[in-house]
C-alpha cells in the first residue's frame, strides 16, 4: 500500500518533469528559463540534505496546523450549522474573512501577533480550515431524520449528539475531506513560511524564487510531494482503521472490506 502511493507519486512527478523537458527542448528554451536535466541533478544533490530537513520542518508545522484547522472547522461549522441569525452571522464572518487574500491580511496578523511561530501556524490553519468548514457545515446542516427522531421525540437531543450522529453518518465523506485537507495544510504552511517565516521549505522556495532557480524549486516540489504522499498514506490508513472498527456496512461492501 505504502509502495503504491509513493510509486504513483514518482510516476506523476516523472511525467511532470518529462513534460517540462518537452517544453524546454520543444521550444528551444535556454537553461535559465528551464534548467536542463544535468543542472537539475547537480542542484538537487547539492540542496537535498538541507531541503529534506526543511520539508520535515514544514510537515511538522502542517500536521499541527491541520489539527488546529480541523478543530476550527468543527468549531465554526457546528456553531454555524443552524440557520438562525447567529448561525448565519458566524457563517458570513467565516466566509468573508476567507475571501480576503492572506497576503492582504498578513500585515494585520503580524501587527496583532508578531512574526513568530503563532502567525505561521495561524496562517497555515486559516488556509487549510475553510474547505473543511464547507464540508462540515454541509454535513452538520443536514438532519439524519431516521436516526435523530428518537432523540428529538424523547427530548434527549443535545448538540453534541446531533453532531455525533451527523458526523458518523457521513464518516466516509469526512475522512476523505480530512485526509485531503492535509494537502491544504501543507500548502498553507508553505504559504505561511513564504510570507512569514525564516525556516521551512516555503522559506527555501522563496529564496530560490528570488534567485530564479527553477532546479531548486523542482527539488523542493519533489520533496513536498514525497512527504505529503507518505503523510496522506498514514492518515488514510488511520482513517480506515478507525472507521472499519466502527462500521460494518450491511451490503455488498462488507465483502470487500
Amino acid at each position, binding site marked *: 500500500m505504502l509502495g503504491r502511493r509513493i510509486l504513483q507519486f514518482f510516476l506523476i512527478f516523472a511525467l511532470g518533469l518529462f513534460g517540462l523537458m518537452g517544453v524546454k527542448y520543444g521550444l528551444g528554451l535556454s*537553461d535559465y528559463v528551464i534548467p536542463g536535466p544535468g543542472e537539475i541533478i547537480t542542484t538537487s544533490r547539492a540542496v537535498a540534505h538541507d531541503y529534506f530537513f526543511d520539508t520535515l520542518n514544514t510537515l511538522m508545522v502542517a500536521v499541527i496546523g491541520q489539527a488546529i484547522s480541523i478543530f476550527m472547522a468543527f468549531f465554526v461549522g457546528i456553531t454555524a450549522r443552524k440557520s438562525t441569525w447567529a448561525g448565519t452571522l458566524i457563517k458570513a464572518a467565516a466566509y468573508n474573512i476567507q475571501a480576503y487574500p492572506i497576503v492582504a491580511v498578513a*500585515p494585520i496578523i503580524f501587527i496583532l501577533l508578531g512574526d513568530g511561530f503563532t502567525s505561521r501556524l495561524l496562517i497555515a490553519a486559516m488556509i487549510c480550515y475553510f474547505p473543511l468548514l464547507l464540508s462540515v457545515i454541509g454535513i452538520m446542516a443536514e438532519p439524519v431524520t431516521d436516526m435523530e427522531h428518537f432523540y428529538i421525540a424523547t427530548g434527549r437531543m443535545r448538540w453534541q449528539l446531533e453532531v455525533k450522529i451527523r458526523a458518523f453518518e457521513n464518516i466516509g465523506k469526512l475522512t476523505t475531506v480530512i485526509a485531503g485537507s492535509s494537502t491544504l495544510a501543507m500548502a498553507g504552511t508553505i504559504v505561511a513560511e513564504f510570507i512569514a517565516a525564516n525556516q521551512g521549505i516555503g522559506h527555501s522556495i522563496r529564496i530560490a524564487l*528570488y534567485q*530564479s532557480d527553477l532546479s*531548486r524549486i523542482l527539488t523542493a516540489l519533489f520533496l513536498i510531494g514525497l512527504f505529503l504522499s507518505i503523510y496522506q498514506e498514514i492518515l488514510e490508513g488511520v482513517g480506515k482503521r478507525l472507521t472499519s472498527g466502527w462500521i460494518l456496512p450491511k451490503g455488498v461492501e462488507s465483502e470487500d472490506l
Partner: protein
Amino acid sequence: DCGETLNYRLKWLFNTSVVGDLYAQDFGFFQRAGLTVNVKAGGPERDAIRELELGHATFGVASADQVIRARAKGAPVVVIAQLFQVNPLQWIYRGVKPAINTPSDLKGRILGVTFGGNDETIMRTLMARASLTEKDVTLFSVRYDYTPFYQDRVDIWPCYRNAQGIMLADKLGQAGEAVRFFNPADHGITFVANSVVTSAKTLERNPEMVQAFAKALISGWEASLMPENRDKALAVLRKYNRDTPEELRQKQLDATRPLVLPESGARVGTIDLKGWKQTETIMLEQGLISKPVHVEKALFPGGKPL
C-alpha cells in the same frame, strides 16, 4: 536595561546587502558595545517602521520612501544612519540591445517596473525628466518571477545591482549573453535607499544606547567591507545565505562595496541630506505624499552618523 535583547529588523532576506549587519552580530561588535542584538530577516510583508511602533523591534532598516511616507502619517521614526550611499536599485538589460545613455533612450522600449514599488517612482521621475509620457514607452508589471526578462519579452528589468543583478548577469553570461546596467543616479536621480531607523521615543529615552548601537553597527559594516576581512565576511554570508553559490557571493560582496563605501571617501553610514531632500521632492512630484514632510527633521542631527 542592557541585558534586554534588541530586535533589529532588516528590510529584506539575508543576502549580501545586509553583510555588515550580520558581520556586526557575528563578530561581537554589538556585544562589545554591551548590547544583545537579534538581527532578523525582513521581506515584502515586513515593515520595520510598524514593528518599531509596536515594540516588536527597537531598530530596523527601511527605505527612504518608507520613512517619508511614515513621517507623512505621523509615525515618530528617525533615521540614524544611511547604509547605501548609492541606491543599488538599477535596471539590467541585454548587451545586444541599444545602449541607454540618456533617459530619452528609454523611448519605445518595454520597461519593467514594480507597480507601487520605488522603482516605479524612480522610473517615472526619469521619464518626466526626459519628457516621456506613458505613451512613449511600455510599462511592464514586474513580479518576483524573472521569466519575462529571460524570455526577452521585456527590455530592461529592475534589480538590486549587487544581488539579483549579479545573479542575472551570471545566468545570462552562462548562455553567452552580455548585460549592461542602467543606473538612475548617473542621470541625476538620487533616491535614497536603505537606512537604519529607530523610534523617536527610543532615541529620546536612551540616546546612549542608540549611539552605542549605531557605532557598533557602522563599525561592523566598515569591517565587513575591508578587503582584508573579505574571507570573514564571506564566511558570514555562507552561514546565513547558504543558498547562493560561493562564486556569486564573492561577486556580490565586491559589488556591494562601492555602494556603501563611496569613492568620495565619506564614512559608512553618512546621511546624504541632499539626497533625502531630493527623494522627498520626487515623492511630492509623483503625488506619493500630499504635502512636504520636511524629512530633514527625521534625520539624525546634521546628517552625520552617530
